């Protein structure tokens, strides 16, 4: 319990084909990219990804590891459209559960609270209901009698998140402006994996206490991955690598894979240095 440190490859060894995996961050911001790259080095396939999607979804789709994406968008922020997500959708190679961003939040919150669903207005009377015919509505039992979407819990087999600092026990700290939904991804998941920029002794997790986003009962393993969110942002440690992101969108996948992803994480970090 005092040492939950694993390597990225050991974490991926605990995952299996067909799992539903939640990925923290938002768009092209603080994504656990070193863990995603470790999945790319493995044989994992048929994954269902739940994500405020960015290049995490794009890379795994490009490599053919994804069966279904559950999301409200897949975007690179400064580049609005994710090329591999677009191609996968247009070529019909993946299934999609398209939800309003707020519905995704509510689904994670329901799973975190062990509730089968939570009521929400978002989605009602939009085509989200048409393209997800399994969604049900529910009526308020109170005199208002209002109808809501009964957003089902998004239960995850595993969650992958990346934070700025963590200790070996699984306490984690974000130092940027937004926690995104990383704590909820952990609370909604069976197995919870935290990668971090810097692994520090517990007493060095200083700063505002509210920056301690996840604690050790929410985390099963910790991975030390310096520059592990590259090329997404991980402020204040570093911003998004816009030049590299542009190269990612403009380079044919086989060429990009051969140049950056065919070797180890150390090879990747050397290639981008």
């Amino acid at each position: 319990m005092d040492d939950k440190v694993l390597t990225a490859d050991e974490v991926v060894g605990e995952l299996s084909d067909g799992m539903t995996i939640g990925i923290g961050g938002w768009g092209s911001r603080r994504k656990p990219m070193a863990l995603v790259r470790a999945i790319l080095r493995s044989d994992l396939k048929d994954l269902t990804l739940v994500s405020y999607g960015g290049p995490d979804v794009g890379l795994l789709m490009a490599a053919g590891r994804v069966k279904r994406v559950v999301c409200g968008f897949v975007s690179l922020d400064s580049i609005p459209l994710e090329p591999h997500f677009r191609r996968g959708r247009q070529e019909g190679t993946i299934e999609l559960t398209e939800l309003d961003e707020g519905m995704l939040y509510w689904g994670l919150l329901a799973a975190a609270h062990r509730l089968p669903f939570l009521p929400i207005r978002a989605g009602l009377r939009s085509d989200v209901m048409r393209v997800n015919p399994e969604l049900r509505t529910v009526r308020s039992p109170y005199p208002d009698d209002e109808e809501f979407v009964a957003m089902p819990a998004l239960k995850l087999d595993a969650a992958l998140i990346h934070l700025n600092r963590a200790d070996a026990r699984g306490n984690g700290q974000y130092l940027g402006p937004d926690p995104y939904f990383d704590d909820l991804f952990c609370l909604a998941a069976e197995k919870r994996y935290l990668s971090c920029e810097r692994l520090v002794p517990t007493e060095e997790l200083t700063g505002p206490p509210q920056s301690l986003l996840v604690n050790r009962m929410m985390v099963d393993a910790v991975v030390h991955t310096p520059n592990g969110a590259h090329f997404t942002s991980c402020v204040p440690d570093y911003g998004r690598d816009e030049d590299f992101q542009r190269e990612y969108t403009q380079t044919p996948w086989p060429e990009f894979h051969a140049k950056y992803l065919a070797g180890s994480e150390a090879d990747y970090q050397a290639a981008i240095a």
Partner: protein
Amino acid sequence: MSIADVCVVACAEAWRGDGEVLASPMGVIPTLGAKLARATFSPGLLLSDGEAFLMHENGIEGWMPYRQVFTVVASGRRHVMMGASQIDRYGNQNISCIGDWARPKSQLLGVRGAPGNTINHPTSYFVPNHSPKVFVENVDMVCGIGYDRGAFEIRVVVTNLAVLDFDTPSHEMRLRSVHPGVAVEAVVEATGFKLSIPDSVPITREPTESELAIIDRLDPSKQRESQLPRP
């Protein structure tokens, strides 16, 4: 004065009278509009930096991470101005994909927060390229809901040609004003459904000199000029 300046003022006008609500503009011209509105006739507006901070002219005045944005959305204290790849006469909007959803011809952003925005709080749209491809009989994927599906309020649609609203008995789209130099017929031709046209269509108001000075201060490199199609 340029058409981009007229669009900035028309976007600003969307937030007139809104008080202390979160203004969420998407894109350069709507963002300039929201900032102009706050600097002039809607000083109560709250604006984020696009990340997690609420920014006043002199710096950070609040913290608004994404999870709190969704709570503000549900509370109704927000007025968003989104884009639209397609929009119909009732204000149903599509930013998700073009073609059959099951296998789209062109995958775009996804529904993002449009369903939740439009059912919870006022929504406006900015369309930089008013054309029959955007203004369609039926959108391919209803992301933002229109009045016929119970939208909370679609306030205005600002385009490079005109300002449109839904101030008709059936809440169908109406031409509110044409920008200086734009003929009513040009708007009709650029719209893929039958617009409601009043007997007399006013001209969209031009920026005042003090508004132009503020716009120039907010956008000294004139980024706004590259947002509209070339005439």
